[in-house]
């Protein structure tokens, strides 16, 4: 099967203080139809920017190079009606539904607007589908909710509306940008379960962006870990979780609080995360915080090399392989 989404050497530069600074420094990704890929990293690692680049929602003045192909067609050069047609195939679920849904329009308008504008459905068909999808995301009284305004719904409910509306146009790819981060913990689990279930039922491909490695691993077939605008490790979620190949992945896994072991303090990763434009040119971006850093790490930037069915960006991968800790089984 050919890939639904192929990203090759994607570089995005944003104007910061008058100069163009890189926020993505050569992303390579491949996503099959129906596959779920987790994109994990700290704030500023470029995970949201990757999703924005795919959906062509980059800030004004952004400069993109490299290639993004959806179903074989290049999307970085799409304009006008072609771009709108592409965006129907890709739906985005944003982090904060409260600010991402127009506060002065009714829920029904929000859900049906796009499909009506595209001319794929009549208002009546769209309303019927909206009611059906609200039921699917387990919202009670869906017919009545259509007449409500966003501020009359809770955050969790609003995020479910967002998910339902993302499915309105029958997309093939879902970009979920931290869909549960803004919700409280009990709601998070419920919303995540609904999202996962609907995605599987419909055979949707998904890029799931989160800073929670274990959540990504639980929901996604494969997981990619990003650091300073690059992918530092990508593999099956199982492999990432139990047998990390990159010291950063290992550090992320170990900095999670655990229920079964009493620790005097949490293991935090020393130092500050690096913005991608602060990343050194001829060195590993993580070297400054890496407990395994050696001379080789600061003299050359490691390439992403294929190992164990995945890939990692570490100069010492051969020495460290099998010694890094993941989640114990």
């Amino acid at each position, binding site marked *: 099967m050919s890939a639904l989404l192929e990203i090759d050497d994607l570089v995005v530069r944003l104007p910061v203080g008058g100069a163009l600074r890189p926020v993505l420094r050569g992303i390579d990704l491949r996503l099959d139809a129906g596959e779920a890929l987790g994109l994990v990293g700290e704030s500023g690692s470029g995970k949201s920017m990757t999703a924005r680049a795919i*959906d062509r*929602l980059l800030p004004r003045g952004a400069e993109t190079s490299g290639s993004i192909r959806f179903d074989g067609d290049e999307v970085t050069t799409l304009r006008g009606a072609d*771009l*709108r*047609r*592409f*965006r*129907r195939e*890709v*739906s*985005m679920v*944003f982090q*904060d539904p409260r*600010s*991402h*849904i*127009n*506060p*002065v*329009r009714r829920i029904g308008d929000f859900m049906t*607007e*796009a499909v009506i*504008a*595209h001319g794929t459905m009549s208002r009546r068909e769209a309303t019927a589908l909206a009611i059906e999808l609200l039921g699917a995301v387990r919202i009670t009284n869906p017919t009545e909710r259509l007449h409500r*305004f966003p*501020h*009359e719904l809770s955050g969790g409910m609003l995020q479910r509306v967002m998910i339902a*509306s993302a499915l309105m*146009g029958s997309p093939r790819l879902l970009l979920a940008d931290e869909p549960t981060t803004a919700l409280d913990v009990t709601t998070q689990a419920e919303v995540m379960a609904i999202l996962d279930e609907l995605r599987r039922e419909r055979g949707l491909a998904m890029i799931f962006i989160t800073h929670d490695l274990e959540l990504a691993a639980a929901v996604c077939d494969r997981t990619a870990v990003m650091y300073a605008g690059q992918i530092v490790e990508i593999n099956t979620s199982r492999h990432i979780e139990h047998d990390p190949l990159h010291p950063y992945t290992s550090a992320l896994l170990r900095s999670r609080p655990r229920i079964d072991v009493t620790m005097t303090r949490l293991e935090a990763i020393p130092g500050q995360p690096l913005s991608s434009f602060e990343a050194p040119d001829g060195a590993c971006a993580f070297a400054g915080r890496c407990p395994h850093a050696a001379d080789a790490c600061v003299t050359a930037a490691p390439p992403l090399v294929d190992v164990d069915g995945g890939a990692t960006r570490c100069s010492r991968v051969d020495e460290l392989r099998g010694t890094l800790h993941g989640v114990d089984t």
Partner: protein
Amino acid sequence: MSMFRWALTRLARLVAALLISSFVIFSAASLAPGSPLAALSNGRTLPPEQQEQLRVRFHLDDPFLLRYVKWLWNAVQGDFGVSIASRDDVSRLISGRIWITGQLVLYASILILVIGIGLGLLAGLRRGAADSSVLVATALFAAVPAFVAATLLTILFVTELGWFPALGEGKGFVGRIEHLTLPAISLAMASIAIVARVTRAAVREEFGREHVQTAESRGIPRRQLVRRHVVRNAAVPITTVSGLTVASLFALSAIVERAFSINGLGSYLVRAAGTKDIAVVQGISMVIVVAFVVVNLLVDVCYLVLDPRIRTAGDRR
């Protein structure tokens, strides 16, 4: 129920605003230097008996608060007393002039709303030359005081080009429009600039909102995006500033009416203040305040239509 309560609170606020301003107006006019007796006697010194007569007739010796309450009680019934200068009913004098001022303000308001919002949208939605031209033009408009605008417009369009009549109010619909065009432009210019600037800023701000990005990510065509998500949401701040500037036109009209010799409320107010015709000053000031308050009430009603969040906020209160 909530709408009823909303209306009730608004009404209570309106009455309170009117009460407070009526008191301020009454006391300011009473405390102003110079005696109303001097105005009554045209500056001549009257014999004491005559002074006494006038004092009694115009209640000048009553305590301040009593005079205020009497005045307010009569004013509520539409009686603002008698003009000291012309010995005519103030209400009659006002109603004879309110129409022309109302027309002038209406004309200027239409110019402000159409041109101000139009320019603001243009500048907000288009970057580059259109935006910079609007910025320069509005800076110029805002910097020119109404009386200077009036003078410049008169020189250009009356003296040089002869397109418009110079003074007066004109007869009939066309004559009225002809006569009021230059005054309305002078009156509107600064407000056009303010409304345009605020509209531009509101549109820019809404464009940066996250929900606009959501709509964009759904592939909504740009025109629909602008209409339903950007302009629709910018309508609230635009309404606010439009309401404020339009409401203040009643007071600003004085300058323009003077400049174009229009016998409206504003110019009459200035004249009455000059001759210490206190009843007239108080009466016209009250009319201006009422107009201001009513326009603000209309703005509130607009909010109710434009922003659903306000509707529910009323529920909770």
